[in-house]
């Protein structure tokens, strides 16, 4: 049986892992590769590294970080996002240790490049990262985090998500990111494309909330960031409370069931 996943997210700014609050306030956590090592040891189903300043500063992917993470020899699938501009960089990111790539700014700047990435890596390796909110008129709005401006989700994005070049969408509740119990499930209910699996992220802090979100047939995974940093083996804790759902049982990287 294919399981739903619980992913750990590491947000990186200026080369350091940070706690992020509403895409506007950041608190340093430490070295990203150490956090990745912890998530690997704790048995996360996937690790997401999102470097939030690479596209804004036109720096390209952080290959030095990927090399440091790779040297840790993680046994957990790694998703990397941040600064990827074209297929060549996406392939290099995978060669450097990532299993899948997350695309954000490119969706705004050069959506035509997404097809080229899917041609080289396969669509299964391509995830669309979408910071979303519900605007005052109840419409789903898509944030360009570089300019901090939101616009209603339009046909252009809907078409892009339906081309078959993107396998999953990371639905980020950026307004409530870092806020306990903040995730707004309306974002999932109003997502405009039916047949693309969704990864929910932003303000997911409580096991009951994760359970509710994972029960949606549209959701293939939940991603948790800040709230994993408050205690050891947090992934175990979440999974123990998610019993009965189609998730992989809680195990550590060395295979101990909890």
């Amino acid at each position, binding site marked *: *049986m*294919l399981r739903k996943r619980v992913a750990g997210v590491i947000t990186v700014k200026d080369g350091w892992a940070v706690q992020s609050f509403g895409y506007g306030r950041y608190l340093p956590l430490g070295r990203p590769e150490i956090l990745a090592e912890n998530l690997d040891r704790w048995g996360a189903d996937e690790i997401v590294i999102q470097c939030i300043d690479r596209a804004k500063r036109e720096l390209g992917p952080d290959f030095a970080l990927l090399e440091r993470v790779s040297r840790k*020899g993680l*046994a957990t699938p790694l998703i990397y996002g941040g600064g990827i501009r074209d297929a060549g960089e996406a*392939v290099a990111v995978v*060669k450097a240790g990532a299993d899948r790539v997350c695309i954000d700014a490119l969706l705004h700047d050069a959506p035509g490049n997404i097809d080229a990435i899917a041609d080289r890596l*396969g669509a299964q*390796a391509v995830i669309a990262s979408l910071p979303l909110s519900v605007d005052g008129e109840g419409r789903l709005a898509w944030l360009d985090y570089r300019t901090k401006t939101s616009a209603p989700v339009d046909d252009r994005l809907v078409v892009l998500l339906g081309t078959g070049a993107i396998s999953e969408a990371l639905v980020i509740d950026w307004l409530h990111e870092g806020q306990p119990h903040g995730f707004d499930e309306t974002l999932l209910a109003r997502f405009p494309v039916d047949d693309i699996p969704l990864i929910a992220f932003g303000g997911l802090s409580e096991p009951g909330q994760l359970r509710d979100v994972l029960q949606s047939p549209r959701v293939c995974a939940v991603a948790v960031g800040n709230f994993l940093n408050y205690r050891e083996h947090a992934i175990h804790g979440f999974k123990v409370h998610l019993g009965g759902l189609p998730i992989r049982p809680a195990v550590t*990287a060395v295979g101990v069931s909890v």
Partner: protein
Amino acid sequence: MTELTIGVIDYGVGNLASISQALHQLGYRCRVSREPEVLDAVDLLLLPGVGAFPAAMESLHRYDLVEYLRRSARLERPMVGICLGMQLLADTSSEHRLTEGLGLIPGSVSPLHGHHWHIGWNTMEVLKADPLLQPSDGHSLYFNHSYVFEAALEYQIGVARLDVPLVAAVRRGMVVGLQFHPEKSQAAGRQLLRNVIEGLCHA
């Protein structure tokens, strides 16, 4: 510590860093190379791969590795293909266009039936009690693919299920293909990778 040396074939496609690190952590010596004189000296050839079938075969041809791999299989050298590396063992693939594969295990690669992708952790069921995989029967492993190797039944040694079974592992003599990523399947994957390497090298 074992003295086995694994040759990871570098043809410009795949997650070489992850597989090399996994092999080192399992205690194997690892040579990442496309040079026949280097690969001739290893105990097992490992063919990784991420991406599209035609581009991967193009790269193997570009580096004169197609005949090298076919000859190695004829000589019954141990060989393991992972993910796309498994699919390359097939006769043909219809990904993007019809492309000839290495032809080491009879069968063809085609799109998944009824699903766009197979992404995430899924349980493997071992067929024919293959001794290499038997200890991993029922374990969850990480899959990430949209095409599947429809190998002839006699070569299938493991399946996973979506609505229907799909081939997760194949074997023909000393050549084994794994559709999932053992190097990214935590303890279950590392144990399986060790069993396959040790089983083939000490057969």
